[in-house]
């Protein structure tokens, strides 16, 4: 019997290595898998590259991970938030590398990794500082730049419902980066608010099919706070 549901955080985090590329879901704090991030801190992997839309707020979740000094580089679209104190300090001190990527390019680069597309052309960022060093090409009269797929070793994902095959649904705008990151990593680890019986999810409504999921941990944390 396939059963991707793990019983504790240690099982969920098993095998994450130093130097891993870790994709972390969420847009701001909504859909961000804070319990798994805490588990990763506990687990101790270091020299990480983190891919996430934001760079953490206050001293919790992603910010707390950065604060441990285990993140060598962050790839994100918007490191600036209401309270990005941890990231800003590290960045100003030159203790973390930053790759700023347009939000849609970031999503598409991960989609490409999950879809077996090694590189694609895009109009986004043409003629801007973020196109520097990238191949530019005119196609049918318009200029584009070439962007590479962005794959993860591990994805940390937050979902609303999950079954033992790893089928997932999300709640409202908490979907955001989670489904695409699930497709882009070798190992996808999910924290789910609700565990449901196999067959309880409408086959027309599954947002991430279990094929993209490695492990599911039940984390009924309640309501997120916006930060």
């Amino acid at each position, binding site marked *: 019997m396939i059963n991707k549901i793990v019983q504790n955080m240690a099982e969920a985090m098993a095998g994450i290595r130093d130097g891993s590329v870790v994709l972390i879901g969420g847009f701001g704090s909504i859909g961000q898998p804070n319990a798994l991030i805490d588990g990763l801190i506990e687990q101790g992997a270091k020299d990480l590259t983190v891919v996430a839309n934001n760079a953490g707020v206050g001293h919790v979740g992603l910010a707390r991970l950065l604060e441990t000094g285990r993140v060598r580089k962050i790839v994100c679209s918007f490191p600036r938030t209401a309270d990005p104190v941890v990231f800003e300090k590290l960045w100003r001190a030159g203790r973390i590398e930053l790759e700023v990527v347009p939000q*849609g390019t970031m999503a598409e680069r991960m989609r490409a990794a999950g879809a077996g597309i090694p590189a694609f052309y895009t109009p986004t960022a043409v003629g801007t500082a973020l196109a520097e060093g990238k191949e530019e090409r005119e196609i049918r009269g318009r200029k584009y730049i070439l962007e590479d797929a962005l794959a993860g070793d591990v994805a940390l994902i937050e979902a609303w419902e999950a079954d033992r095959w790893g089928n997932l649904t999300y709640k*409202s705008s908490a979907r955001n980066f989670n489904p695409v990151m699930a497709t882009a990593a070798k190992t996808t680890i999910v924290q789910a608010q609700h565990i449901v019986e196999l067959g309880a999810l409408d086959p027309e409504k599954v947002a991430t099919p279990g094929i993209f999921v490695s492990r599911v941990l039940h984390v009924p944390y309640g309501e997120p706070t*916006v930060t």
Partner: protein
Amino acid sequence: MNTMVKDSVETLPACQPLTRRQIAERLARDIPEGWYVNLGIGAPLQVADYVPPEREVIFQSENGILGMGPAPAPHEINRWLINAGKQYVTLRTGGSYMHHADSFALIRGGHLDLCVLGAFQVAENGDIANWATTTDSAPAVGGAMDLAAGTPRLWVLMEHTTKTGESRLVRRCSYPLTAIGVVKRVYTNLAVLDVTPDGFAVREMVPGLTLAALQEVTDAPLRLTAT
């Protein structure tokens, strides 16, 4: 015209510049029923407040909401439903959710009828600079480059000048570019201007303002729209 510093708006004779809310209200009048619209974070988000609900305009938020509604009453907040500005919002009847890769595929694919962004500068060739001014804090681009490059109709909502009186409508942008040649129209506290192959064309001005006086506070050369 050779200096960036112009007389500040406050010295303009006999006219009442619009407040930010009034610019949003003015812009909202030009959005017809049935358009799909993305409103950039900050001032552009206020445009939604001036589209009456009976005029069906469908707002998209790049974090995966199509059919975004107004802010919820405090007791009706869905804590998993935020907009790109990370404020609580609602979903209109008929709205739906999608993940980030699908959301930016929609944006990059040119399916929106309109995107409204704020900006630091707009150049007479349609270039827009709205994401970075200094290198003091970490660069943060978010979805601005995707929206600017992807949407066929880009309108900018901004003050005509900076607080120190420098024109935001320029011959060439001095700040880092967001996208090249994409702005179609600019709504400021003083005027509505089209970007044309021949530069800025003034569609309308606040009552009492003259083209000569508007030119005084504008770096780029202006002309009236042919009528």
